[in-house]
Each structure stands twice: as C-alpha cells, then as structure tokens.
C-alpha cells in the first residue's frame, strides 16, 4: 500500500497520502480491534489457566479417593488405622495442601453418625446394616461396625476469579475380600 505519494522533487510531501482524520480513524479502529482481540486472548488464556487448575483439583480429589479406598480395603485394624472402620477416625476433619495450586487445599469430612448424614450424601443412612439409622459409629470401638463411610471432599484454590471452591461426594466401602 502506498501511504505517501512523491512530490515532483522526489521527497514526500506533507500534502501527499491520507489526511490526519483518515489516519486517526484508521488507528482508532485498529486499536479497538486490537484491544478486543487482546482481551479475548486474555480471556482465553485465563480460561486455559482455569481449566488447568480445575484438572489439578480433580486430580487431587481422585488421589484422595484412591487413598481412602486403599485404606478401606485393608482388613480392619483400628489401632493401626487400617480398614473401612478406620476411615472416619483417620480422615474426618483432615485438611491437606495442594502444592500445585495457589492457596490450594483439600478438606475431608467423613460421616459416621447415621442420623446426621446430610441428604446430599444419602442421609440419614444405615452405615452398619443393622436395620436402623440411629447409630453413632464415630468412636474407634464402634468403627469396627462401619460398613459404609460417606465422605465430602472440598477442594479450594485461588485464581483470577478469586477463591474457587468445589465440593464432591463419595461413599466408600471395602471392595476386596
């Protein structure tokens, strides 16, 4: 594109090319388009970051679930915190740090008091299959009777949106012999 015409003496002339108004309008349009594109790219970048953070959060939840399941599959040995009966006493109230996420934490709430299990976890519920939902199986001695443990896992971290919190629910049982 030829922005400047050439005067008869071969030098650019002040009167050649586009007027100031034309150039200003063009620059304004260009800047607007560039800004829009930039903002969109920024949003895309944030979205990518959020997706990555979310994937890391899900991975942390998966890891916790796998760890609890592994513990639940051991034969019950409550003093050594092994077996499905020890899941409640081992993990209830536990909070861990997710180092891969900014201010990332994962907190675990287990339920063993049958009448107070939240509805979102299917409560009140019979956790020892004795035919009622009245038992509190949270004590270590009573934990030996636990057959099911409802667990709420909350993962929290910060990103451009501020503090992000996600809650997941899972019920555990011994799945091996």
């Amino acid at each position: 594109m030829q922005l400047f015409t050439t005067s008869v003496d071969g030098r650019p002339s002040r009167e050649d090319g586009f007027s100031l108004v034309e150039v200003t309008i063009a620059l304004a349009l260009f800047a607007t388009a560039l800004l829009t594109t930039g903002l969109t790219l920024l949003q895309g970048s944030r979205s990518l970051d959020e997706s990555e953070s979310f994937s890391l959060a899900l991975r942390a939840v998966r890891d916790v679930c796998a760890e609890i399941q592994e513990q639940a599959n051991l034969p019950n040995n409550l003093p050594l915190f092994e077996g499905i009966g020890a899941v409640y006493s081992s993990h209830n109230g536990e909070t861990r740090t997710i180092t891969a996420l900014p201010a990332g934490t994962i907190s675990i709430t287990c339920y063993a008091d049958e009448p107070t299990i939240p509805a979102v976890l299917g409560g009140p519920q019979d956790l020892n299959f004795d035919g009622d939902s009245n038992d509190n199986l949270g004590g270590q001695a009573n934990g030996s009777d636990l057959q099911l443990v409802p667990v709420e896992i909350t993962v929290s971290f910060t990103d451009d949106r501020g503090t992000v919190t996600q809650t997941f629910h899972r019920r555990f049982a011994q799945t091996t012999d």
Partner: protein
Amino acid sequence: MDLQTYGQARVSARKNPREKGVALILALLFMVGLLGFTALSVDMTKAHSVVRSSEQSLFSARLISESGLAQAMARLKEAGQTAPVSGNGANAVWVPFSNGEYFYSTDIDIVNAKATIRSWARVPVDDFPSGSIVAPDDPTWDGSGYVTRGTEVTMVSSRYLPETPAYFGNGGIEKPLGGFQWTSGVDPFDPSTWQQVSNNPSSWQTASVPMTVNALNHPPDYLYNGGSPDPATPGVHDYAPWVSQTQVGQMNIQAWMNNSANGGSAMSGFIPSPIGSYSSDPTSPDYVFPVDTVAADVQDYAWSLWSTFENDPTVPQLNSGNQSGVYGTETMPGITMVTGELQVPAGQTFEGNGILVIRDDYDPNVDTNNTPGTSAALDIYGEFKWTGLVIIAGWRPSIQVRPGGEATIVGSLMGEDSVMSGGEVSLDSATIIMKIEDDFSLLYSNALFQPGTFIYDHLPLLQKTVVGARELYTD
C-alpha cells in the same frame, strides 16, 4: 513539468481510486481477520468452558456411580446372596446423591455363588433433563439432558458350610481336665510351654459318657421321621467330629473327650471313632480334631444375626429364663433369638427348626463398657430338640445338661466366647463351658446346610472376592 501538470499529478496521487481501493480492501481484510481471530478466541474460550463443565459432570458421575456400587457391594458383603437394589425397595430406583442420582441392581447366580452388580450414575446437564425412571441399559431409557456413567462388578462369594457336628471357635471347650491352662511362662504359640488343667476343671461330664458326637450325615428330618445316617466313608471320614480355630482348642477338645469322663475311654462318644483312619499329625487337615483358621468367627456371626433380626417382628425374641414350646417346624424353619440364659424346665420341651441364636445382651453400637448384663447359656433340665444350627456366643457361653435332662441337636452346634462383648482375651477364657450330666447327642446333618435350604441363606459369608469389573456405556 508545468504547474498545471504538477497539480494534476498531485491530485491524481491523492485521489487515485485504485490505490485507495487497494488500501481499503487491505484494511477491511485486516479487520475481518482480527474479527475472525476474536471470534475464534471466543469460541475456544467457550469450548474450554464446555470441556471443563463436561469434565466436572463426568467426574461427578463417576463418583456417584462408585458410591452406588460401594453401597451395593457393602450390602452384598454383609448379607450375602441377596440381590440389593438401589432404594431398598423391590425394584431399583434412581436415588439422589450429590449433584446427581445413582441406580443399581444385582443379578444373583446362586449355583455359581456369583453376584453381578450394575451401578449407574446420571448428572443433569440440561435445565430440563428427561424423567426416565429406568436404567441406561434398558431399551426404553431416555438419556437426554444427562451425563451418564456405569460400572459393573462381579463378585464371587461363598458361605461357611458347617462340616462338623461341633464347631467351637478359638479355644474350644473351657478347661477340661488335661486341657490348656495359663501359668507363668506359657506361650500360646509354643505348645512345649503349655500347662495342663490338673484339678477343678471348668468343663466336665459324668462318667457314663452321656455325650455322643456323631459326624455321620443324618437325614435332615431325623428328629421327625428317624432314618439312618450315611455310613462312614473309608479312610478319612467326610466330616470331622469336632473343629476349632486354634491348636489350643484342638488340645482342649481332645482333653475333654479323653479325660472329662473320670478318665474313661471317652473317645467312644465319637461316631465314627476318631481312632484309625485319621492322621496322627495335629497340623494335618485330616487330623481327628482339625484346626480351621479360615472358618467363620462365631461371635461375629452371632452378632450379625442378632443385629439383623433383633427388630424383626417375625423372629421370636426370647429373654433369659424358663422357655418351652416349638420354634420353627420342618416345613417352616426360622430364626429364634435368645438374649441371655435359656433354661428348659424339667418336664417341658423346647424344640425347633432353623437357627437358634443364644447371645448376651451387649450391643457394641450402643454399649461402651464391655460389660454385658447377662451371659449366653443353654441350661437344660427338661428336653431340648433342635434341627438345624444352634449358636451360643457372647459372654461366658455355656451348655449344661442337668441330671434328668436330655438334648439332641441334628445339624451342628457352634459356640464361642467373645472379646467384643466383654469376654477376655486369654485363650482359656475365650472358650465355652460344657457341663454334661445326662444325655446329649450332637448328630451332624450335611443336607441341612446345602444351597436352597433356609439355613444356607443365613450362613456366614467367607469368600467375597471381586472377580471382574468394567465400565458400562449406553447405546
């Protein structure tokens, strides 16, 4: 160039429509490109958002499906060859859980002891998902508006089939003459350190050897119609006369039969005689009083039955004291629960068919003091007749047949003390007291415990193994 020509050239340079057209087209192309790029970026951002949302829904569906599966497996492991379905009703229904619902059903293959659980989860992703009430593997399933996920698990389970007329877990009979006794230096894992009871036995029987332990296979209706048991097999017999879980129990049982009848030849109480075809090696499974370490824990079994049926109005719930009557018949066997000490008065009869559970009153869900209010006992002054399984488990379990009393059990007898409900840990107390002063017959019947019988459905589960797992997909 003259002035006019210069002026024309200048005007031509500024207003050359071709150049301006090209510039305009390039500018438009640039703008369109930027707009297109912007639109693409917006689309990609939306795509990220959708992917993240889908990932979350799928992850939730997976957790919900596994939660339903956990519930089904726990119920299978607890109850055995039942067919659990979600919702605890007759048919499986969608049950709310977390931000979705689960649905599971179970197919039972009794012959092969195999249970297949199919657990589904659905998480709504539309504002108005379908109201389908069937499972995603049903041809009428409408999955619009949902993310679904399914898991199938196949479990093999087997039950402990009593193969002996008398199974006393752990330490066997408590302190017969010549039986196990604690003193200083005794190591329960080192038989060379064991000490024998030399006086004041806790368990004994009168000199006439009134007790008969018959390991032949009796007809299941033996008490009603008589008949003859299957003859003994050559070599090692099909069924051991007595089984325990430890070598201490093995020692106590042998001591009971050898010494408790005032030193008489008590082995004659066993039919077929344990002398002869059996191995002389106590560690051999063909030993006359074999140790079976994988056999069911009697106390756990008794507790499982007690906690399952304690509020069942169709199950007789008897308390301590004198009891008589008929509890279950040949055509209508059942479970009978006794909490405490069952006494059969002189001149009266207590008889039944099915499973008789005599247990202390300790409820580990509620009680914490390890102190039951009553022991578990069967005390017979009159006549006791039972076809099926008799379980005596809990605190200080005992059997007494008083002078003038008579007891016959066709099936099997199980007994054990309990640490769970206040029993002591030591082996010489984790046993059952037996004082037999009149006729007591334990007659084995294998047919009572086979699949398809009432008792089989309530026998303790032993093996509960997952043999297969796979993800399920909808069409």
